[in-house]
């Protein structure tokens, strides 16, 4: 048991550092990389694309993708090492994670040869940015309850409906939309997965203003939007299979981790406000620290498993289920420490920004409750709840209280 790199890991890490040292500036100790709140800045998108292209042209992009699709054909291990190293440098925010982490792998698994040829290399280089059009106002956790319709008309599909929580819709060239092509089929059977040009007529994008004032997400309205059948991913009515691939990749995407308020930072804050001697404060900070440590060392265990060839499974839900609520609790506690002045936005410790930003982390990509259900079902293999919507034609499933 040790924390040292294997010789192969050390060699790869050294190469990664050499590239990064040449092309990027190393972060100062304690400085965190730019967060997603700045992603709406148009210059940042361009910088982000330039950085991705530089990485791609030098063999540092899409490390785990097969070479034939523009990747490097490496394992998750190299990807982890790269993410750790890249996270230590000041680089533009990554606007490609949805495309590269979810859309690309879905096209690889279910797309046609023509689609792979046309889209993957450009996606890998950051030439096109992709978004995911899954959730709807009435279909979030219950994604398969989606209602956006796709009707076949000649060689095209005609899409009508509304998607929501679409990250980056304003700057994406392509989107992957899951639609209901057969409302008479059972819920999971009548879905079709389509690629759509986000510049098509009939698409309207409205940014959603979040609690923290930023707008990372959008509503996307479809009014008679046409996309050719050649951009269908998988068979008609078999869209749920593709959606499942996408969601599994969402969970498996491992970040460099970290950033934001840490338990140790609260010691400095407690000292500043004269409460470092208060045992109720000390007890709380200790609990935060222990929990954060548990998460950190769980990451080490996962990394070890990856370096031995395992593929991260549903256990990865732990990181989000622990990390997101803890971020909110830390922020709330840090604000309370400041007493009535806690209402003021303080950028030294960033508790207020974190308090306003963290609720989204507990919802995006699967709520805490969905994460618990994933663990219950896929890790613990507990029996599931009986469902009233299984095997029933979609248009006969109740969607609200009965009308009197």
């Amino acid at each position, binding site marked *: *048991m*040790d*924390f*040292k*790199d*294997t010789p192969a*890991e050390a060699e790869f890490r050294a190469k990664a550092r050499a590239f990064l040292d040449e092309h990027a500036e190393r972060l100062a100790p304690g400085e965190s990389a730019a967060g997603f709140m700045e992603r709406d800045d148009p210059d940042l998108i361009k910088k982000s694309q330039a950085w991705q292209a530089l990485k791609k042209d030098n063999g540092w992009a899409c490390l785990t993708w097969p070479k034939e699709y523009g990747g490097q054909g490496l394992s998750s291990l190299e990807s982890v090492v790269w993410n750790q190293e890249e996270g230590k440098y000041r680089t533009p925010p990554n606007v490609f994670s949805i495309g590269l982490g979810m859309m690309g792998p879905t096209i690889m698994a279910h797309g046609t040869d023509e689609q792979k040829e046309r889209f993957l290399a450009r996606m890998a280089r950051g030439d096109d940015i992709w978004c995911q059009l899954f959730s709807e106002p009435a279909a979030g956790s219950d994604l398969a309850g989606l209602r956006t319709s796709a009707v076949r008309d000649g060689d095209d599909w005609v899409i009508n409906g509304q998607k929501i929580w679409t990250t980056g819709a304003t700057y994406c060239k392509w989107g992957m939309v899951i639609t209901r092509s057969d409302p008479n089929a059972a819920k999971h059977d009548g879905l079709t997965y389509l690629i759509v040009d986000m510049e098509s007529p009939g698409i309207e994008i409205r940014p959603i203003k979040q609690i923290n004032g930023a707008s990372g997400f959008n509503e996307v309205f479809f009014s008679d939007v046409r996309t050719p059948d050649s951009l269908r991913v998988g068979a008609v009515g078999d869209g749920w299979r593709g959606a499942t691939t996408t969601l599994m990749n969402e969970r498996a995407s491992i970040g460099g981790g970290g950033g934001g308020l840490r338990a*140790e930072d609260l*010691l*400095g804050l407690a000292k500043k406000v004269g409460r*470092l001697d208060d*045992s109720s404060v*000390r*007890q709380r*900070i*200790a*609990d935060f*620290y*222990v*929990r954060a*440590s*548990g*998460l*950190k*060392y*769980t990451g*080490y*265990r996962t*990394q*070890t*498993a990856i*370096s*031995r060839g395992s593929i991260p499974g549903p*256990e990865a839900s*732990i990181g989000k*289920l*622990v990390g997101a609520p803890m971020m909110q609790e830390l922020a709330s506690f840090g604000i309370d420490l400041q007493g009535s002045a806690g209402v003021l936005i303080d950028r030294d410790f960033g508790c207020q920004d974190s308090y306003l930003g963290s609720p989204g982390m507990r919802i995006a990509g699967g709520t805490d*409750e969905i*994460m*618990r*259900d994933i*663990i*219950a079902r896929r*890790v*613990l293999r*507990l*029996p*599931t*709840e*009986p469902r009233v919507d299984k095997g029933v034609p979609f248009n006969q499933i109740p969607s609200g209280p009965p009308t009197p």
Partner: protein
Amino acid sequence: MNFDFSEEQKLLKKTVQDFLTEQAPLAVNRAVLESDAVYDEGLWKSAAEMGWLGAAIPEEYGGAGFGYLELVLIAEEVGRALVPIPFGTSVGLATEAILAAGKPEQKEKYLTGLAAGDRIGTLAIAEGPGPVKLEDVTTTFENGALNGTKIAVPDGGAADTAVVLANTGGATSLVIVDLGADGVTRTVQRSIDPTRTVATLEFKGAAGELLGGQGEGAALTQRVLDRAAILTAWEQLGGAQRAFDITQEFTTGRYAFGRPISSFQAIRHRLADQYVDLELARSNCYYGAWALETNADELPIAACNARISATHIGELTSVEMVQMHGGVGYTWEYDCHMFYRRAKHLGLVLGSADEWRERLIQHLIAKQAA
């Protein structure tokens, strides 16, 4: 990154688990609970024969020549089986104290017996309720004679040798005492978990010998407690995992309202939360094991992390075990209470989680100042 146990270590763990599955069903713990026995002597002998007691003792003193990575895995299995033997106390406290501070002749005299299981050791610190202040004990050791009273001595009913924290002329020192000696009165106390007895030890002029230097008592004790905390955390983790496994099985077999109760979100989400906290505790225990094996500078902080999270998960899984079993969970007949008792016992025996949280903060402040 190699943050895992080796294949050989995992094989050893499997061997221990197989042996205990066969030889230590929960009925063994129940038998001690329901009798006047203070521990299971047969399993204690087996533990000695298989080298568990001397896993971290050098071979020259009769040890098995394993290391701490092996020892923690044995502790986990002992915890999982709720084995009613004074393993953590004799191995984690007494043996560690003598390894840390014993002169060669003391090691020769005591470690050989501790490894062979002929001797059962304990560490006597507390003198009254509330957090222990190691620098402030009233038991005295002067001119070779020990006087005073120690309470809540772990496995005090089973031990025959105690390492005692005493005041020696204004400073503290550790003293080894044979509990069969004149001037020692031992009273086994009623406690939460009678399968791990606690005793009051009254010393009236009992003969003892210094362990370590004069005035080193508090520092040595803290060092031993830190190391024992990691070993005990693994024992707590093993018990927590077993409690959780039993609860998961029970709630899946138990039907109400026409379906398994583990299909209700009120149950399954809580099981998911327990699984998550088990994994966090396990990861903190891994880090503790690494610190123990390498004697890392980070050991005191690693000990706090392991101790606090293992105490939390021990209590959480055993409380939920009783609750999720419903009415039968509260009966003497079902096994839930044995986990409920053991978890609380182990969570207090080295000091409560509150005390460890306070220690953690002191370490973190010192680290930031450095």
